[in-house]
């Protein structure tokens, strides 16, 4: 075999690291956006009222759940309408551990992730035989069954039945931070760790294998990828992310009940994922913001135009629907897809 000295081989420059947009190299631009984002995330909780801090915390929780769903759907090509079930499983794991076993909230986050990983992995095994719409139906069944199961009277001792379980926000151990601010930072740290983990995962050998299965499962197997294992482990990881979001969400809401985890939660996560962009990690934050704020904006908008006419309440959903259609029409591949398109269109090759 003729060995070619790759050290002397001129590897072409990657346009993703050398192209120039607005007179700035892309990696520099990326770094700047990241720094601004981190700075905002650190400053915001000190400059807004406590209800907004609560909302921002919920945004982060949704973002983690959307990220979990995106690992499964965006990167691995498996559909799920059942992620509300993993969110519920995580939330109840945290609530039951805190309420019945008096374990400090912080120690429930990891177990919630582990239990949801196992749940996701086990569900992923039979799901191997299902594809596309059929997988969507099977996961839909999971979403429908879960609230019923949580309500089931023979489990009431554990789950609290219809009443659910109350729990309290962890108290802030830092004098300068209020309880809301403290919880915000707990969720932020979890979110950043999970985000970095997801980024590392998707950029290496594992991520390539996940995407190969999405693009062409048959060829992926021929390349030596154990597609069954990758698909079920991805289901597990996805479940774990969403379960951790559930555990954090339980502390934010200070309450878990079957009706908080209906099929609609799955749909909201799906909306957040599509609006943010399939197959993009930072898009999860956009998804979280959309899920929480766009319904609120719709409400404010209707109130603005119709005053306190009670019949106008019916129009809130219409306004939201218009926002959604507009977003999907303008950015068919989500915000991340739009950014990608913009960069390809306007970035110039650098030196």
């Amino acid at each position: 075999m003729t060995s070619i000295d790759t050290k002397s081989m001129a590897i072409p420059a990657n346009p993703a690291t050398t192209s120039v947009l607005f007179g700035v190299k892309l990696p520099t631009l990326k770094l700047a956006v990241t720094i601004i984002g981190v700075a905002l995330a650190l400053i915001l909780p000190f400059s807004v009222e406590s209800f907004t801090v609560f909302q921002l915390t919920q945004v982060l929780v949704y973002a983690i759940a959307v990220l979990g769903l995106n690992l499964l759907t965006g990167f691995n090509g498996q559909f799920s309408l059942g992620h509300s079930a993993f969110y519920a499983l995580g939330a109840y794991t945290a609530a039951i551990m805190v309420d019945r076993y008096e374990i400090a909230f912080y120690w429930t986050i990891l177990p919630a992730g582990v239990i949801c990983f196992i749940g996701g992995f086990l569900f992923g095994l039979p799901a191997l035989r299902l594809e596309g719409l059929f997988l969507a139906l099977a996961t839909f069944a999971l979403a429908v069954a879960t609230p019923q199961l949580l309500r089931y009277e023979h489990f009431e001792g554990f789950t609290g039945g219809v009443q659910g379980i109350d729990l309290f926000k962890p108290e802030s151990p830092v004098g300068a931070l209020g309880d809301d601010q403290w919880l915000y930072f707990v969720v932020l740290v979890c979110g950043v760790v999970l985000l970095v983990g997801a980024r590392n995962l998707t950029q290496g050998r594992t991520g390539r294998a996940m995407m190969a299965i999405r693009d062409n499962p048959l060829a992926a197997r021929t390349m030596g990828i154990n597609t069954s294992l990758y698909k079920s482990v991805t289901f597990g990881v996805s479940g774990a992310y969403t379960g951790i979001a559930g555990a954090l969400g339980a502390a934010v809401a200070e309450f878990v009940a079957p009706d908080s985890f209906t099929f609609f939660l799955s749909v909201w996560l799906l909306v957040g994922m599509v609006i943010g962009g399939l197959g993009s990690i930072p898009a999860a934050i956009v998804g979280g913001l959309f899920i929480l704020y766009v319904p609120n904006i719709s409400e404010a908008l209707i109130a603005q135009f119709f005053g306190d006419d009670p019949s106008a309440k019916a129009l809130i959903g219409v306004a939201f629907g218009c926002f959604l259609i507009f977003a999907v029409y303008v950015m068919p591949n989500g915000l991340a897809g739009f950014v990608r398109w913009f960069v390809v269109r306007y970035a110039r090759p650098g030196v």
Partner: protein
Amino acid sequence: MNQVSANASEASSSAQPLLQVSDVAVHFGGIIALDGVSFDVQQGAILGLIGPNGAGKTTLFNCLSRLYIPNSGDIRFAGETILNVAPHKIADIGIGRTFQNLALFSTMSVLDNVMIGGHSQSSSDFLSNALRLPWVKTEEDRLAETSWELIEYMDLMDEAYTRVADLPFGTQKRVELARALASKPKLLLLDEPAGGLNHDEVEDLGDLMKQIRDDRGITVLLVEHHMSLVMAVSDHVVAIDFGRKIGEGTPSEVQQNPEVIRAYLGTSD
């Protein structure tokens, strides 16, 4: 010393073919796709497998990649049966392939496609990737180095960062070949590599196949309709029709085989 061991390995390889297909039969319901086909592929050879449309060539390839399970018969690779090897382990044992109608990871770049070809040559997993453990970087660098070498070899340097779906058909075929080589195969299965290529591209492909065999010592099993290409590159040709072997030999022997001529041109009576 080297001379001796080279001769010794040559002697042993001529004693045992790299691939032995014995009496393989595949039925789909009542349809017989393969009806007891047998042939050997010698180490370092280019074997051309020909036959009219529907003769069972791709079915045989899919048996070799373990995508189909033969109803009877055996397939041995380097002396061992492959019929109990899991489909995703086929790349591991040294069998690489390309597909008739291309099966690339079309949303990903050429570089990523070739690196996925090296999946069986690497081992990092979910946890080590998520935590980006130190050795993951070493492995990633090694994989990238091999991939760049193949990208250079296949003359794909200018397209390395391009999404595969955005490339012309002929270029995609080269990407698929580079991806197959990234698994460092001992046996390369090429399913109609000349399909859809123009005259010049077909000529280049013939040279490339010989080059791959000579540079890298890779044995090639070629399914192809393009008769002049098969006859120009193959050391040995096997012809099948309706799931049965109808002729075998050197290219010129097979060209004169009356059964083969009949299968291709039809009978006059």
